[in-house]
């Protein structure tokens, strides 16, 4: 049986925009059989029939392990299957769907019993159809209370697509990784570089998380998909408090499509030591000035990718506007079509067809989106001007067609989401040139400037350096940024580097952002003024002597 399966796979491993063959995969076959039955029979006499039904089965396999202080504290694995059924009533012009996305979920059998799978689909379909009927009536009534019609249709037609990819499987040497995590989380107490300040390390943990998803999709367009993805995330987190009580921490990790793509054992240990050393440096670092700074800040590629993920990406993902408004969509760039949103030397493309970049296999890559639409590269920003949004099958004004960006989180409906965002400068500077430019500004303005290596959540700097005109770098702590917003990226970027940083996340929808270093002209650096918690009430237990 195993041999036959292997022989069969390459036959379906290619993308075919043709009629639906009889699927060899028993799951897809069961899904199609139930879909055919529901398509012909599902109607309450006198009520509307569905005009679109989509079935998606998700086979979700996760593994997580966490170690703390050099000992394993958690190891969990789960494997389950969920079906999601989407039913649309009405027509593509106006249907039962809401901005949130609609559908019904059921657990599906883990052991692939096709009869039970069909039963779960049947039950979810019944539920989804009834909900859709109610939603359609409510929505049509609501629309009547508004003066103007919606600015776009509710749904876009799509051609039938067949794509059956090999199944994704989890490949992870668990014992090896557990060993690595135990070692990494215990380094604070054992490494000669960190031993001297081990007492001040209040937490030290390391984790590995693996997610392998296989998605099976069939819909009434005739589309049939079997696609999988894998995401492996490794992370460490160390931290504690400065003597004045300020919470300080370092946490970082690597993300890859295979376990082998994660950082090596040696690199992981080195990173932990670096994190511990920088935590200790932060503890002794001066607090940022009490008075605000407004001026140049150089962002590393890592920090720049974070800035774009927060300020840019969500605003080019076209989400449906609130009902009754004449807006094109949600977000900051809803009325910025063909206008400048970045400096002229920057262009941005989303290219999920790019499978790897400088040796990194990209998490955001895919061929066909979760709504059955093949994806092509999209030029979002060309020489600073916004030329395209990322669109799924819920169109927005001026963008009536999907460009293959309908992507779904696990168990959720598809929304417009980016895949592989690449920010590129037409006038890239080398790292040295960029640094020289920063120092020139410092000299010109006769003061210290700032350079940021990494950001924490909410765009707060984690490793921020004050840089004097002569190039001396001083680590500071306790700062937040202000006025780091869409205006700053539109008209406040002076220059960009040429060395792209690849930021990947498994997240709810896997994605990649590739960004260069960016030099901002005018960012505010403020003191955080957060409440400082008490330092430990009593010292930690003595570390074992070795």
């Amino acid at each position, binding site marked *: 049986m195993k041999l036959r399966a292997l022989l069969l796979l390459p036959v379906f491993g290619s993308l075919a925009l043709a009629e639906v063959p009889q699927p060899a995969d028993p799951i897809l076959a069961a899904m199609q059989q139930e879909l055919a039955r529901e398509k012909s029979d599902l109607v309450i006499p006198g009520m509307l029939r569905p005009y679109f039904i989509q079935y998606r089965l998700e086979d979700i396999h996760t593994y997580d392990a966490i170690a703390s202080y*050099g*000992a394993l*504290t958690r190891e*969990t694995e789960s494997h389950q*299957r969920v079906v999601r059924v989407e039913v649309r009533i009405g027509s593509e012009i106006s249907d039962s769907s809401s901005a949130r996305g609609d559908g019904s979920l059921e657990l*599906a*059998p883990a*052991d692939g019993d096709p*009869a039970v799978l069909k039963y779960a689909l049947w039950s979810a379909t019944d539920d989804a159809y009834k909900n859709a009927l109610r939603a359609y009536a409510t929505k049509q009534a609501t629309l009547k209370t508004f003066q103007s019609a919606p600015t776009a249709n509710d749904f876009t037609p799509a051609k039938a697509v067949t794509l059956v990819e090999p199944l994704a499987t989890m490949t992870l040497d668990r014992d090896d990784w557990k060993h690595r995590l135990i070692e990494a989380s215990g380094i604070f*107490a054992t490494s000669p570089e960190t031993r001297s300040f081990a007492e001040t390390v209040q937490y030290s943990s390391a984790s590995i998380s693996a997610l392998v998803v296989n998605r099976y999709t069939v819909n009434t367009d005739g589309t049939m998909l079997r696609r999988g993805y894998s995401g492996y995330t490794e992370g460490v987190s160390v931290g504690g408090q400065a003597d004045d009580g300020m919470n300080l921490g370092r946490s970082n990790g690597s993300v890859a499509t295979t376990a082998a793509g994660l950082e090596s054992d040696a690199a992981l240990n080195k990173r932990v030591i670096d994190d511990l050393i920088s935590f200790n440096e932060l503890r002794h670092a001066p607090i940022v000035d009490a008075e605000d700074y407004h001026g140049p800040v150089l962002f590393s590629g890592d920090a720049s990718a974070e800035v774009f993920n927060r300020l840019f990406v969500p605003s080019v993902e076209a989400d449906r506007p609130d009902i009754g408004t004449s807006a094109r969509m949600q977000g900051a760039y809803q009325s910025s079509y063909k206008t400048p949103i970045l400096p002229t030397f920057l262009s941005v493309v989303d290219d999920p067809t790019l499978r790897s970049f400088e040796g990194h296999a990209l998490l955001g890559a895919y061929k066909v989106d979760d709504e059955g639409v093949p994806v092509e590269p999209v030029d979002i920003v060309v020489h600073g001007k916004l030329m395209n949004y990322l669109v799924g099958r819920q169109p927005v004004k001026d963008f009536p067609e999907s460009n293959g960006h309908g992507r779904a989180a696990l168990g959720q409906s598809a929304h417009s989401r980016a895949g592989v965002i690449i920010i590129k400068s037409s006038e890239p500077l080398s790292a040295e040139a960029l640094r020289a430019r920063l120092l020139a500004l410092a000299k010109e303005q006769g003061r210290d400037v700032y350079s940021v290596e990494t950001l924490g959540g909410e765009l707060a700097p984690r490793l921020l350096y004050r840089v004097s005109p002569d190039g001396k770098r001083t680590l500071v702590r306790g700062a937040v940024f202000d006025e780091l917003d869409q205006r700053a990226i539109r008209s406040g970027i002076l220059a960009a580097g040429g060395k792209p940083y690849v930021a990947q996340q498994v997240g709810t929808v896997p994605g990649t952002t590739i960004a260069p270093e960016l030099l901002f002209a005018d960012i505010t650096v403020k003191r955080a003024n957060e409440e400082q918690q008490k330092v430990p009430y009593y010292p930690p237990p003595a570390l074992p002597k070795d």
Partner: protein
Amino acid sequence: MATELRRAFAELGSAIEPVASSVAKVGERLPPQKPYFISYSVADAESVTITSQYGAIMNSNETHERTADVQVRIGSPAQDNTHDAHRTSALTTMALPLTDDRAAIERTLWYATNRGYGKALDALEKVKTEQQVRAREEDSSPDFTIERPQVDILPPEPPLSVDRSAWESRLREISGVFRQYPNIFYDTAVLQATHETDYFVSSDGTKVAAPNHVARLIVAARTRASDGMDMFRDETFEADSAGHLPDQAEVMAKTQAMAKGLNDLRTAPITEPYNGPAILSGRAAAVFFHEVLGHRLEGQRQRGDEEGETFTKLLGKPILPEFLSVADDPTLTQYNGSPLSGHYLFDDEGQPAQRVQLVQDGVLQTFLMSRLPIAGFANSNGHGRAETGKMPTGRQGNLIVTSTKAVSDAKLRQMLKDAARKQGKTYGLYFEDISSGFAVTTRRSPQAFQVIPLVVYRVYVDGRPDELVRGVSIVGTPQAALRSIVATDDQPQIFNGLCGAESGTIPVSAVAPAMLVSQIETQRQAQGTARPPIVPPPPLDEAANSTSSPKGGR
């Protein structure tokens, strides 16, 4: 064995040390706010859970977790940081290393204790302020009881071993029963097996390790009548280990009977309003006593400002007919040879389990006490129970109802008919099964403590066969029914299950004989209006034996 013993000692030793050091050192730095009590409660639990539906496995997994509940109390037993609404301020929960790494365990406990101390300080300030601005409390009892230290280190549980593939096959067969019932739109058969060792150390000298193991097989199903009324049945099998659960033939027979019963219920006539005599089966009476009496006798309910009705004024007074007595006895592992799931050796505050006579000859004697005192009761009686991660409160273990006025089943049935006839009724009601938050339902709202009849028959006085009815709901406060119990049968039945309340979900048992109640008022329940499925279900028999894994599968 020896390794395991060393492991237990290693863990306990490391746990005790930080307790001592934290009491000493915290005290040094902040003399007025030295904690007066710290405890570490560690649950080391291994479990296997396998879920099936319609003959297919939906989920099958194994877990091993060690969780520490750290309690820190500041102030004094008379008034501390847990007062009133701040009860959870004493508790900090954290995952512990799964291996016996002493340094890592100690440091984790330190981290949790340090955090917990900060929380406790903050809460104590709030408590003090609130006391200044409020009127005098009705119950001015202290916040914590003073107890004698307990020391008892029992050997830990051996590693859990469950033949998963054998159980997966069994569960497929069990839940596969429902394939013959297309109108049962939800079913599940779940195996849960747990081995747990609970460690408890405290600054007042208690040091306890107690093993605990249980296996549970739950079968539940749901259907909907054509008028939209939902109906539910469940069957729970309990044993000390998966190997001791009833054999497959017995489980299959009970599952088949349950499926058939539920299917019959779907088309049973709907009840009419009724006010007259009824019998509660032993199982139904057990659930009824657990919900209606047991929960209301939990100590903390007699205390708070928000608890509406208290039993404090009824102490020493009759609350049941004098032929009934009620005890809660967690020291029992079984009753007439059947396992009881409310059994434990030490409660979650390190106190030894005790038999407590709650009601003697109808007269209320005492309450289920944790270490939270109430007026008139200054000590725990070993009923402080909680799910891991929650603050313990007074809870039930094995609630046992006994009767001195027991008659045979046949006699009780005759008494029902006689009573119905006397009241001018053509029938009396027989409650075969009732449900509550007790069973596998997801309802966890603690104030509910309501009972929902699941299976009710009309017992006709003229000798016609009993008739199943659906949609029965009990009107008014169910306590009224407790006083109108006339007699019981002589065949006590056991109900094992999980009970949810403020301190989480815990295993409990209730044992009671069938009871004749002279007066119970029922009406038709408020029912769902959901329309039954539009398209008939896909056939479930076509692929009953094709459970092989898919091509190219995992």
